[in-house]
Each structure stands twice: as C-alpha cells, then as structure tokens.
C-alpha cells in the first residue's frame, strides 16, 4: 500500500493514486532572489490522497516553495500544475479556488474575529449572494448564511471545536489556534492542504494527536496533504512520500525508510563523517 511509483517526470506517488491526475505537479520550478537561487529545479508530483512531507535544514527553501505553490511569489522558472491547470499568472485567491489551501508557520488567524467567523471567511467562495440580497435580507441570503453556519460548525466538530464557535480566535489556546487554522483552510474545499510546520511548539502527546488529525483530514475529505516539518517522528510516522531539500534543491525523494538510510540526507543534516577525522 505504501509503495511509491515513479511518474514520467521522475516523481513518486502512491500506487492507489496512479490512475488519477496528480493534484499537484511542479516541473523544474525555480525562483531567484537577486543572485540567489532560493529554489531550483523543484520537480514533484503529489497523488490525490497522498500525505507527503517536505523536509530539510533551516533556510533550505521549504516555505518559499509553499509561497510559490500559492502564487504569493512568482516563479522565475518552471511550471506549477494544480489539478492539471497551469497556475501561471493567476492571483493567490484563484489558486485557492483551484484547490490549494494552507496554514502558516507563525499562526495567522483573524484574531479579532470569532472562531466561527474565521471558518466563514474560508467559506467565502461557497456563498454567492450579492450586496442587494443581503441589504434587503432576501431568502437566498438567509438560506446561504444558515447553510454556511451549519457547514462551519460541522467542520469545527471534526476537531471537537464546535463549542468554541463564539470565542474570539485570538483568545484560543495555542493548540486550538493551530487546529482552527486547519479548519479554516479546509473550509475553502481544497484538493491539497499545505501545512507549514503544524507541530511547531507542540509536546509529544499533542504531536501524536496532530498526526491522528492529519490522517483524519485525509480520510474524511479524500484530499492530499503536504507538510513542512522538523519533527521527524511526525514526518516518518505519517508521510508516504518525502522530498528532502537542501540549498533550494531536492537531494532525495522516496519513502520514509528510503530517506532514513539515504547518505545525502544524512550528510545534509549531520555534515560529512570524514570531516575532522
């Protein structure tokens, strides 16, 4: 089940997703900041229900890749295909509509809004009523608002947060804020959820719960999850495919077992053995 199969683009995806178009594919993606190649020749494919990891030392370019995938940055080279569509020239909100949602390394909730309102912002595009309809309180306004509220509560109940709906987002404890960020992202009905260091600042038992939650998200919504993480127990525990990044380049791709024993990866993290001897 955990077998990864190479695609023509030299990327790996799980066997069960083989007959379907990858949800996300990048080809020779690269970006320069001034003279620096922040990311270069980044080629991957992510299966529709795959949980994959992006790891690498600090400054390797992981968050830069998330910013490229969401069109926050414009790539210098290469192609991004979301669900088969080239995202070149699209704005960030269009890429989100196409199916890419994300969370942030430093939590970026709408702190002054309630928990429910945060999720409702995620549901922005699933509501269609116009200003006139809301001003004159047409039935379609009530119906859509009511449905969105129900949907928001349903999503919150996924992580047992429905009782916090009316709390101010900024007042939530840290772990709940992280979960709310995931719920808000899920509200946009993504095909792939990008998680930027979801376990940062968590203790081992919270991390274990997070692993369960990530699996739950994948199994409930049948979507792909791509995560950046430094916590190796989490990465090795739930990722099916892993790409290792160093100085903006992929130095290894494979299953957790392959990555663990990969010489280039060990060197990138620990330095070369011969040095100093």
């Amino acid at each position, binding site marked *: 089940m955990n077998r990864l199969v190479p695609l023509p683009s030299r990327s790996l995806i799980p066997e069960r997703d083989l007959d379907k178009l990858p949800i996300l594919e990048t080809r020779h993606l690269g970006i320069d900041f001034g003279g620096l190649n922040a990311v270069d020749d980044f080629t991957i494919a992510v299966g529709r229900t795959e949980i994959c990891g992006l790891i690498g030392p600090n400054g390797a370019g992981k968050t830069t890749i998330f910013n490229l995938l*969401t069109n*926050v940055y414009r790539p210098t080279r290469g192609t991004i295909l979301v669900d088969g569509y080239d995202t070149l020239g699209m*704005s*960030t*909100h269009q890429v*989100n*509509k196409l199916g890419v*949602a*994300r969370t*942030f390394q*430093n939590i*970026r*909730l*709408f*702190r*002054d*809004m309630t928990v429910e*309102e945060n999720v*409702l*912002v*995620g549901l*922005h*595009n699933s*509501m269609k*009523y116009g*200003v006139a309809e*809301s*001003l004159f309180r047409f039935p379609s*306004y009530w119906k859509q*608002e009511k449905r*969105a509220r129900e949907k928001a509560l349903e999503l919150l109940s996924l992580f047992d947060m429905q009782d916090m709906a009316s709390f101010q987002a900024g007042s939530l404890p840290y772990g709940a804020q992280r979960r709310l960020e995931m719920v*808000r*992202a899920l*509200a*946009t009905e993504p095909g792939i959820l990008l998680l930027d260091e979801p376990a940062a600042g968590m203790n081992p038992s919270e991390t274990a719960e997070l692993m369960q939650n990530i699996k739950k998200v994948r199994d409930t919504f049948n979507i792909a999850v791509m995560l950046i993480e430094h916590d190796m127990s989490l990465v090795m525990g739930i990722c099916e495919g892993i790409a290792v990044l160093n100085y903006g380049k992929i130095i290894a791709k494979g299953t957790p077992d392959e990555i663990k024993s990969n010489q280039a990866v060990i060197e990138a993290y620990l330095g070369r053995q011969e040095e100093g001897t």
Partner: protein
Amino acid sequence: MSLLETIFRQILNGLQSGSIYALVALGYSMVYGIITLLNFAHGDIIMVGAYLAWLAMARLALNPIFAVLVAVLGCTILGMAIEKVAYKPLRGSPRISLLITAIGVSYFLENAAQMIFGASSQSIPAIIKLRAITLGGVQIPGTALVTLLTAGASMAVLTILVNHTRMGRAMRAVSEDTGAAQLMGVNISTTISFTFALGSALAGIGSVLYSCAYPQANPTMGAMLGLKAFVAAVLGGIGSLPGAMVGGFAIGLAEAFVSAVGLSAWKDGVVFAILIVVLLVRPTGLLGKPMHEKV
C-alpha cells in the same frame, strides 16, 4: 429661551453636524482599515455630491428624491473610479506614495469643480421640506430630525453589512491580514473596491445631509469637512467603525458647545486642538486597538 432649552438646542445642533462627521469619518476609517491609506480625497467626494444634488435640482429640476439618488450613486461610482485609477496601480508601493496621490486627487477634484462650476458658490434648493415638530415645548427643525434618522439608519445598515455578510467578513479579514485573506480565497481587488463603494456611498449620504444644513456648493467645501471628519476618525480610533461614529458625534457636540458659550470663532481651532491632544495622549484613539507591527 430658558437655559435648558438652549442646552437642548445646542445638543441637537451638535448631533446634527456630528452625524454628518460620523458618516464621513466612517469612510476614512474603513479605507484606512483595509489599505492603510488616509484618503484625503474623501472630503472632496462630498463636494462632488453637493454639486450633483445642485445639478439635479437647480438645473435639471428633478424631484429631490432623484437628486438624492443621483448624489449618492454619483459619489459611489466616483469613489470606486478613484480607487481603480489612482490607488490600485500603486498597490504594493510605499504608503507615502499613496498618501501623496490622495492629496493629488483631492486637488484635482477641487480644481476640476472650479473649472466646471466656477469658483463662486451655487445655492442648492431645499431638499427636505419638513415642518419643525415640537417636542416637550422645544422645536426640532425638520432637517435635524431627518439628518439624525438617516445617519442612524445608514450606520445601522453598515454595521449589519460589515458584521453579518460575506463581503463584510471579507473586509474585516483583509483589514486584519491581507495575505491570509487572499490565501483563503478572498478576492482583494473586489473587497477593496467594495470598501471604497461603501465609504463613498456614506459620503454621498453625508453630502445630501450637509446640503440640507448648509445649502451651498463650492469647490473647496469638502476640504474643511473632510479634515474634521478625519479628526473624528482619529479621535475614535482610525480603523474602528464604532470609533468613527463616536468620534463624529463627539466632534459635532464639541463644536456646538464651543459656539454655545460664545466662542464660535474658535470652533475649528478646538477641533484641531482635540486632534493634537488625542495624538499626544492616546494616539490609538478612544476605541482603537494598540498598534502592532505586521511581520
């Protein structure tokens, strides 16, 4: 007139001009909240609204109701057009470039009005013909009553729009974290455009109400009104909508009381003294949140 009557009269005057300041201040505050721009052209939109009302009534002899519609719609479209033409191309530029552009737009509007309508004032026919009503022995002028009711209703509608609709939530999300809102699928351009439309519509309503109280249109009438509304927005806490309302009424009442004690010549001075005091003592305003640097 008894002392009590005088006080009541002045409170009423203060609330009438205060509600107009509040409507204009809301536009300042909303736009600042969403793109951190002090839109100094906002006051001049009121001037254009007053001219539109004058055109509709004095020149085209339209019914006052149509004149109001023309003024409000005209202001809304003008506000959106200014954003599209002058501010949108500067998105991502330093804030000072936007600010200078806003001042430029303000001068442009004033001079364009002077070119088209001439420098002298045009008198606007009475828009509201309502007899004063007597309440507990005190006369309340019709215009004061209509102004208060209209402003109150507008603020209520705005509050509902901002708090309970998808566009309102998008506005609040964008003003808190533009990047995150965008990544959640919120279209920034539409949201900013909508904000300008709302703010300018309120300015349009404000211009009609102002024209009821001071039935004259001249090219620079928006400058002082805009500045005072700006002080109101800062007093309430710029970016905060309840703050803009409170600030507007506070400025209106302060002016009325300065006039009541016989110091009308000091009216404008007192307003700007309030600005200085607020900036010294509580720069975030009455209801503003402490500033935190965006990372």
